[in-house]
């Protein structure tokens, strides 16, 4: 049956009507093959205009339509809806832009009319080769995997778990949840106790029925795509039964092994069986298999003998647990610049040169000194020098939060020791946000000294005193606090490979768009939140965690299907030569190789329809729906004419 095409030219009041001879367009196209009607209308986007279009489609029994009007960016979706309501597949409509890209930019009316005619002819030619496209829907798995139990991950877990009908799996590498923040005593700008602030969240995550937490666990591998991922979680052997242990700590005392406690930044010792710090949750110890005597061939079992509940299991093994999830949130955090880079500042050489994180632990009531900030010789510090921006020059970025937490630490020191002298060596001060400036002003008022220099200071010792030398100035201090750049956690690279997402030049996970999509990645359904995406403070990290959860909540709805992008690439199996060119070009890893058939296959959930694979396909097997070569050629044929 012959196509029945209708052409509708909008005058947009005087906007097009006065600039272009719309009657001339209508008269010209009337003679074109399959055009059954061509009309103009004063304002097609108006309620009256939409009704007019609907009745035209129905009365004229149209099979395709062309609308010449404003930019499709304005009302294309509206017109597509009219098509759908009138029984035409919306992809059998073509809009052409004779307002922004013609009437408004072409002062000469006859030139504008000729140009508009060519646009309309091109749209007619194109619409004839357009094909109906059905929007596909797929079954989805509403459960979500969150990796990393810091503040961003916790927020994501709780937001997601608030919706019924969904399970959330939280995977945390360390034996406890709460991330870095739970190890701080007080946090800026509210100066509240971090463990108290987090306690309700931690408890809720651990107790909520639809959140399953895997501590001391890592991601082994992942396959699938948005809506349907399959993940393997390696639950590392803890050698302590989470089921039987009640957290009485009877096992620590008899353990004969002592090693530096990484959770106290090496400032204290822990046993081979340990919990990271007092109050760590879940309150179940772990045996460090690298240092345990029994697990390294020496007879010991001291902890086993001490345990009143038979919770020690030396025969425990790593377990691989498979979970099916629809979305994945990475919240794997960050760390301070490595200690190697700090050695030029006397770190490791002088006892009282510490990192900011070490000072945080000294200040923490669950830390190595029970919250007492003391020098190595046990005395209270009378002067402390902070060195900001450590590693910033090499890193070439400002971490943005170090000034504020240093100011917080300085503030705490000044409260604890009212006569203390505080020196801050900095190159730039960064205290944005509505709450922060006042803290800076306050320690200035209290007499903290700020010394600006772009030079890297030299650190030396004179007797018990440390000397900071910079630009011919010398300042003596009892303690030096290094404030290093924030860098991604070491396993960021491994995770980027597992999830097939990219890292930016600084090593953090790359977000999809710096501003507009700061928490999603190029891989649909995989989100990056908190400091693994870039250094940020607690509030910003929590906001991202919530934002990613919101994005998942709105798209992976329990019991509902997921609608896929309509304009995507398809591959003709008969034409594909299996050259893999498209696979290497796809920015979304949406194309893979079917090993048996030796051809490329498009994952419809991942393809976003950019069409770059189509342009490169040497056989023409790859085809961009709605932007096929035939459709573009049909347009070229008309617009190229003089």
């Amino acid at each position, binding site marked *: 049956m012959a196509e029945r095409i209708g052409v509708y030219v909008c005058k947009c009041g005087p906007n097009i009507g006065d600039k272009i001879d719309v009657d001339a367009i209508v008269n010209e196209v009337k003679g074109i093959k399959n055009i059954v009607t061509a009309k103009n209308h004063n304002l097609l986007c108006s309620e009256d205009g939409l009704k007019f279009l609907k009745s035209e489609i129905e009365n004229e029994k149209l099979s395709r339509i062309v609308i010449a009007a404003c930019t499709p960016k304005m009302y294309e979706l509206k017109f597509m809806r009219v098509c759908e309501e009138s029984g035409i597949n919306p992809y059998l409509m073509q809009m052409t*832009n004779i307002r922004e890209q013609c009437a408004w930019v072409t002062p000469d009316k006859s030139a504008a009319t000729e140009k508009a005619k060519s646009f309309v002819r091109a749209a007619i030619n194109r619409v004839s080769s357009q094909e109906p496209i059905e929007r596909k829907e797929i079954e989805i798995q509403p459960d979500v995997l969150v990796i990393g139990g810091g503040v961003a991950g916790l927020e994501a877990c709780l937001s997601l778990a608030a919706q019924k009908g969904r399970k959330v799996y939280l995977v945390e590498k360390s034996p406890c949840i709460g991330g870095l923040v739970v190890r701080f005593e007080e946090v800026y700008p509210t100066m509240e106790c971090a463990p108290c602030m987090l306690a309700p969240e931690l408890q809720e995550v651990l107790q909520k029925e639809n959140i399953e937490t895997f501590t001391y666990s890592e991601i082994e591998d992942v396959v699938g795509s948005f809506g349907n991922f399959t993940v393997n979680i390696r639950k590392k052997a803890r050698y302590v039964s989470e089921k039987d242990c009640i957290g009485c700590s009877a096992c620590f005392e008899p353990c004969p092994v002592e090693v530096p406690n990484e959770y106290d930044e090496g400032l204290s010792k822990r046993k081979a069986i340990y919990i990271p710090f007092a109050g760590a949750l879940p309150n179940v110890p772990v045996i460090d298999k690298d240092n345990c005597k029994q697990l390294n061939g020496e007879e010991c079992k001291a902890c086993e003998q001490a345990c009143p509940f038979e919770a020690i299991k030396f025969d425990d093994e790593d377990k691989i647990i498979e979970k099916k999830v629809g979305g994945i949130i990475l919240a794997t955090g960050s760390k301070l610049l490595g200690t190697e880079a700090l050695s030029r500042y006397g770190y490791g050489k002088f006892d009282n040169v510490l990192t900011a994180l070490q000072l945080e632990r000294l200040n923490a009531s669950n830390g190595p000194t029970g919250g007492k900030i003391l020098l190595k010789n046990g005395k209270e510090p009378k002067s402390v020098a902070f060195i900001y921006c450590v590693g910033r020059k090499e890193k070439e970025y400002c971490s943005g939060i170090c000034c504020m937490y240093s100011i917080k630490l300085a503030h705490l020191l000044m409260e604890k020791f009212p006569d203390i002298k505080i020196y801050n060596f900095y190159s730039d001060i960064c205290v944005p946000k509505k709450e922060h400036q006042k803290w800076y002003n306050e320690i200035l008022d209290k007499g903290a000294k700020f010394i600006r220099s772009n030079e890297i200071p030299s650190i030396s010792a004179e007797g018990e005193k440390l000397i900071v030398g910079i630009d011919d100035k010398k300042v003596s201090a009892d303690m030096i606090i290094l404030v290093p750049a924030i860098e991604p956690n070491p396993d960021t690279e491994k995770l980027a490979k597992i999830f097939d997402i990219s890292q930016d030049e600084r090593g953090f996970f790359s977000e999809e768009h710096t501003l507009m999509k700061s928490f999603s990645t190029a891989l649909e359904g995989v989100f990056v939140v908190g400091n693994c995406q870039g250094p940020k403070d607690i509030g910003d990290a929590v906001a991202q965690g919530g934002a990613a959860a919101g994005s998942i909540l709105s798209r992976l709805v329990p019991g509902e299907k997921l609608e896929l992008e309509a304009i995507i690439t398809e591959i003709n199996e008969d034409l594909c030569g299996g050259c893999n060119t498209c696979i290497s070009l796809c920015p979304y890893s949406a194309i893979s190789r079917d090993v048996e058939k030796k051809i490329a296959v498009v994952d419809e959930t991942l393809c976003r329809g*950019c069409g770059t694979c189509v342009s490169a396909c040497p056989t023409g097997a790859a085809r961009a729906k709605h932007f096929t070569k035939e459709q573009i050629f049909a347009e070229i044929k008309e617009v190229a004419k003089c």
Partner: protein
Amino acid sequence: MLKQSVNPDLSGNEPTIVSFLCNWCSYEGADKAGNARLSYPANIRIIRVMCSGRVDPQFVIQAFKEGASGVLILGCHPGDCHYKKGNYKALRRTYLLKKTLQQLGIEEERVRLDWVAAGEGERFAKVANEMAETIKNLGPLQLSV
């Protein structure tokens, strides 16, 4: 040998410049030029594609075959591509395409790849005017039979 199926109109109408604009940045940039009522010659003829990376070298050759005397390819600025790196792919392809076109006797200035952001109406009008000027100076493309 490449043949034009349509002879260029030498009677006064300007030869056309087929312009492939990416949906996300450049097409919106052209809309902004309209919003600001900036003018450029009517022989700039626009075709919307999803990404400059979709511009197959065949599109360019086809445009010349169908009578165009110039081809403009506009995408998002480097680093801003909606699809991450489609514009870089367009850059690589255009570089090679220009070499091929030169061998066919088509001046490389007849193809211009450039970047126009969604807010850059003025830049779009500037690029369009410059391209029209370039093609005017080169004259209509006449492919040998």
